[in-house]
């Protein structure tokens, strides 16, 4: 088990991303292990999405290296993309296509045979048997998230990237999504997610990295991070109810100022 835990699925080293004169990500390094849910936390504009976009191959990074399941994303982009499943911040499929057509499209793109039986099995798994003929634009937010997540995992990838997966969901849908994310981990996949929700990070993440101004300022398990900063005067100063939470640590580390 210890040997398996040491195997990283994603390794990011010295990553820097620049948009013209703006340095969005500065020398970021972290890795995500097999069977681990890793959270990337940070205020708006901290560099979370730029980091994720670099891994996904959407952004050309200036320096550093990214290895996904042994594949360098620069040298073998298609191999790296095939090893990962992605749920983007805003769900985005052709609004004219229905659920079955979307499943067929992405099944073919990821090289997964999508016969009627397989499609029915997926629809049952995500509780959309009655909505199979509905167009994506006609689904509720929670249903769209479920379709988006199943598309991200349709090819059984080693690494699943989720960009703020629970934004805009009601508590029931959020809990259900957490269970699905934990289910991904139980199947041995690694998950990298970004979130603004400290509750989410504490509830589902095995380890978290706090990112600010394009740099990683802390990496640890949520509980270790709380324990480590419990007696920090800044953390105590921002604590609201006497009990130190991950949110207190986060605000103490990233500052109280509201970001754009």
């Amino acid at each position, binding site marked *: 088990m210890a040997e398996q835990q040491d195997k990283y699925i994603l390794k990011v080293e010295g990553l820097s991303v620049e948009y013209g004169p703006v340095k969005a990500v500065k020398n970021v390094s972290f890795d995500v292990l097999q069977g681990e849910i890793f959270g990337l936390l940070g205020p708006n504009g901290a560099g979370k999405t730029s980091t994720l976009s670099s891994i*996904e*191959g*959407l952004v050309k990074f200036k320096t550093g290296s990214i290895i996904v*399941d042994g*594949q360098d994303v620069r040298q073998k982009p*298609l*191999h790296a*993309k*095939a*090893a*990962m499943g*992605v749920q*983007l911040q*805003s769900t*985005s*499929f*052709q*609004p*004219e*296509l229905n659920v079955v*057509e979307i499943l*067929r*499209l*992405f099944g*073919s*793109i*990821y*090289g*997964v045979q999508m016969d009627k039986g397989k499609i029915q099995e997926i629809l049952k798994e995500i509780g959309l048997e009655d909505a199979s003929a509905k167009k994506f634009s006609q689904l509720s937010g929670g249903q769209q998230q479920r379709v988006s997540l199943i598309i991200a995992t349709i*090819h*059984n990838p*080693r690494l699943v990237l989720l960009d703020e997966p629970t934004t805009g969901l009601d508590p029931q849908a959020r809990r259900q999504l957490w269970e699905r994310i934990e289910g991904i981990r139980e199947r041995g996949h690694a998950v990298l997610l970004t979130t603004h929700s400290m509750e989410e990070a504490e509830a589902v993440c095995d380890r978290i990295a706090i990112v600010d101004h394009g740099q990683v300022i802390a990496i640890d398990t949520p509980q270790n991070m709380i324990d480590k900063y419990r007696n920090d005067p800044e953390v105590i100063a921002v604590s609201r109810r006497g009990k130190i939470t991950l949110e207190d640590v986060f605000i103490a580390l990233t500052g109280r100022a509201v970001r754009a």
Partner: protein
Amino acid sequence: METTIPKSSTALAALLRADFTTLFRNRRSVVLALLVPNIILISWKGLVKHAGGPFVLATGVVIGLMAIGLMGYTISITRDRDKGIFQRLRVAPLPTWTIMLSRIIVQLFMIMLLTLVVFVVGYQFDGILLSTGGYILTFFVAFIGGAVYLCLGQLIAGLVKNPETVNATTRLVYFLFMMTGMFGDIAQFSDMGKLGPYLTSMAHWSPYGCVKIMLQASMEPAKWGHDNNVALMASVAYAIVFAAVGIKNFKWESR
């Protein structure tokens, strides 16, 4: 665990299936795109004996090509870019060229469909009948002409990010081309003064003019001459320049 990378042809086939389904679901806008050139054909019936059948058919086809290339293609790719649909496809293991090629094939199908409908309506309502060679050559030229406007659409979508601005720009260019066409046509029949020859020449060699004179000649292959060869080369050059700038500057997301 082995990672599977599907063949480009498999990915392209899947994209084509999805894009043709999207086209079918948007069939109202397809009908509207086909309507404009056919309204021209029907309303210009009296002009056939003065200007000739090929002139009227060519005008109908070129206006349809502009509507598909400039309005249809540009607006659809701008909408999908704004919604993040391209980004979702780009994170999948498929070459990015397959995404655009699929869209272009769908539009070329629309161009062929439009040309066919214009031929049928032209025959039914205006009694315009071409030779077999004329029909074949016109399909080929419509393909080239369609490529000019698709590439121009690509250029606009490449240079302008905001969907509203793209929409306004395509409408403006569409209007300018219509005016250029009208000016060129008027200039054939009236005295435009000292500037006349220069303006006529500009209208003649504009993307609108080149495509139109090619189309007109293609319907009567015997009349195809040096001027049409130059227009064909100019059209190919327009397409290459528009495509090169449009692809080089194309941004996959609108933010």
